[in-house]
């Protein structure tokens, strides 16, 4: 069963069309990157999948069912959500941030303690960071905490909205490595929105290229490189990958 299916989804704001007639499926337990220039609608597309945005037309099926807009919280608790800038709650400690959903789900203390320990080790965060506050951590550390938080309830689906964009290149490279490791250990359905084609190439099994609300191409990274489907894709790839430092 495909975890996420979009059928002819459209969204406009006033007379500005953001997404036009999008039909997409996402392969289970694999990483799909959604990429495109700013204003292409990629963030909107992502937010259709957890109901933060409602489409004007079309259907969206998550985990086999159409989204029930009257019980979004229970759907969302099955989806891990991470955003740019992490959105860690400043008034809660690292531990409280990560375990919030588990506490609300009335899991036992032992279970919670075990899980957070497991997660922090997985992302290389020292466990004695638990009592620190977000503002005491570096950007990279905060992003890792954000990932732990998203993973706490062990969701099958993750929606990631440019989560690594604000990191410096070195930290980003480290996190990329951890991301790939995590997928290797226990693969999940990942939908990653990014503006960085190199990142997409590195992390994703499949890439969706979006431009002005429409799909330009869907395919594996090597296919996109070798057989660009349109002039736009060709230019886009060229700009992103061959924008080297002038020597």
């Amino acid at each position, binding site marked *: 069963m495909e975890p996420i299916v979009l059928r002819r989804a459209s969204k406009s704001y006033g007379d500005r069309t953001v997404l036009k007639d999008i039909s997409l499926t996402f392969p289970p337990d694999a990483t799909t990157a959604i990429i495109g220039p700013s204003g292409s609608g990629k963030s909107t597309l992502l*937010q259709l999948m*957890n109901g*933060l945005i409602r489409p004007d037309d079309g259907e969206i099926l998550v985990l086999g069912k159409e989204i029930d807009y009257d019980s*979004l*919280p*229970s*759907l*969302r*608790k*099955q*989806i891990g*959500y991470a*955003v740019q*800038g992490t*959105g860690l*709650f*400043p*008034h809660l400690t690292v531990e409280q941030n990560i375990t*919030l*959903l588990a506490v*609300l789900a009335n899991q036992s203390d032992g279970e919670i303690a075990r899980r957070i320990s497991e997660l922090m080790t997985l992302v290389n965060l020292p466990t004695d960071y638990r009592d620190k*506050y977000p*503002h005491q951590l570096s950007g990279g550390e905060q992003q890792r905490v954000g990932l732990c*938080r*998203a993973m706490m309830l062990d969701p099958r689906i993750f*929606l990631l909205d440019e989560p690594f964009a604000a990191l410096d290149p070195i930290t980003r490279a480290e996190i990329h490595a951890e991301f790939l490791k995590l997928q290797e250990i226990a693969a999940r359905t990942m939908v990653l929105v990014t503006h960085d084609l190199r990142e997409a190439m590195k992390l994703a099994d499949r890439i969706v290229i979006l431009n002005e609300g429409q799909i330009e191409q869907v395919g594996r990274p090597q296919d996109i490189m070798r057989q660009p489907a349109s002039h736009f894709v060709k230019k886009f790839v060229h700009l992103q990958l061959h924008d080297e430092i002038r020597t």
Partner: protein
Amino acid sequence: MALGIHPERTPIRVASKPFNESYILAEIMAQLLETRGYSVERRLGLGATMISYEALKNDEIDVYPEYSGTIQEAIFRLKGRRSFSSLQDFLSKQTKLELLPSFGFENTYVLAARADLAKEKKLHAISDLVGQTGIRYGLTHEYLQRGDGWPALAAHYGLSANPVGMEHSLSYKAIAEGQIDVLDAYSTDAEILKYDLVLLRDDKGFFPHYLAAPFVRQGVPADVKKVLGELAGTLSEKEMQRLNALVISEGKTFAEAAEDFLQSQKALSSPKARPADSKWVTLARKTGDHLRLTLVALVLATLVALPLGIITYLKPSVANPVLYSTGLLQTVPSLALLAFMIAPFGTGTRPALIALTLYALLPILRNTYTALNSIDPVLKKVSVGMGLTTWQRLRYIELPLGAPTILAGIRTAAVITVGTATLAAFIGAGGLGEYIQTGLALNDPQLIMWGAVPAALLAFAMEFGFEALEKLLVPRHLLQRRNG
């Protein structure tokens, strides 16, 4: 039967208006009743005629000293000249109230002028004022508003002038310093002698008689009325002036003046009244009352405004109506609000608390609304996106994040309420406002300070208390970020 306590009886509630003579007459009635064995509850200093009348009508008090002219013209607006007995008749038949026989003196409105001016312009009667230019009138606010007050007087005599409204006790100061020329006075005022003023005769017979008498509810027991009736005809105008002067010029308390009078009347004399509490005990008691009023009102206001603020956040469509109408409450003059409260709620603590709570709503409401709407949109998006329900978001994310601002709103409300609570005295709810009110009535700045200074200290205490509370409830880094 003469000297015995009646334990099964509820206390007789004796009230007064907030001026010298009213306090003294009320004390005389109260002490007389007490020596006859009744227990008395004093509700002195009710803010205005309308407040004391409404309190009597609504069975909140049993008796207070009133004047026949005030009953006829200000309260019931009756046409024509009524004799005292026809007024008593009217009250017995058409209301549930009763006017007992007069104490024996009249305290009527007079216009008084500076002696030197009166000599210069040959002013002996009110008619002599007609046609004069440049005469500055300083009249009490109540007099300017009353149907039987300035507007009618000016019309009756053909006077044209623009009087300035002022507090009665302040107008004497003003005339002494030459800032005004004519003021409205009461014929038994001690200040008339003190400031060397000339009373202008009411030669066109404008003013009705103002005989002072106990104004009671018909429902008051007959034996109580009989005791009060013993005061009939015992006080002459001169005697009342003397008693007034005891307080104003010689610094005696109202209770002492009343005692002086009762002692001088052999037929009414009583054993020495019980000693009053020391100054400091009274201060402690009033401060305690004040603090209690403030805190209860604050808690009530928080219990109402906090949920209301959350509702305006969850349903933005109601935000404006709710915020505007709460703001509107702030603009209602406090004394007016208190007067409106009497009919439904009576006098004393209940209406005072309701008024104080209403005034404390806006800062809390507005701060709650602002706090919740100022949350970082990224945080809001994440908390929604990760699947927290509305209640979970409020409880774990939004309210904690908004706590500094919300606490600041409650803090503001606390300080405001300490100040507004001084008005509670005007409706008989006690507190530090009683010093201020009596001080105003007696033109005694020191007495005013006894109320104002502790109130200011209470406000400081509130500030410190809230600062400590903030440190306790909010993680330090959130406070610092706000202030730094």
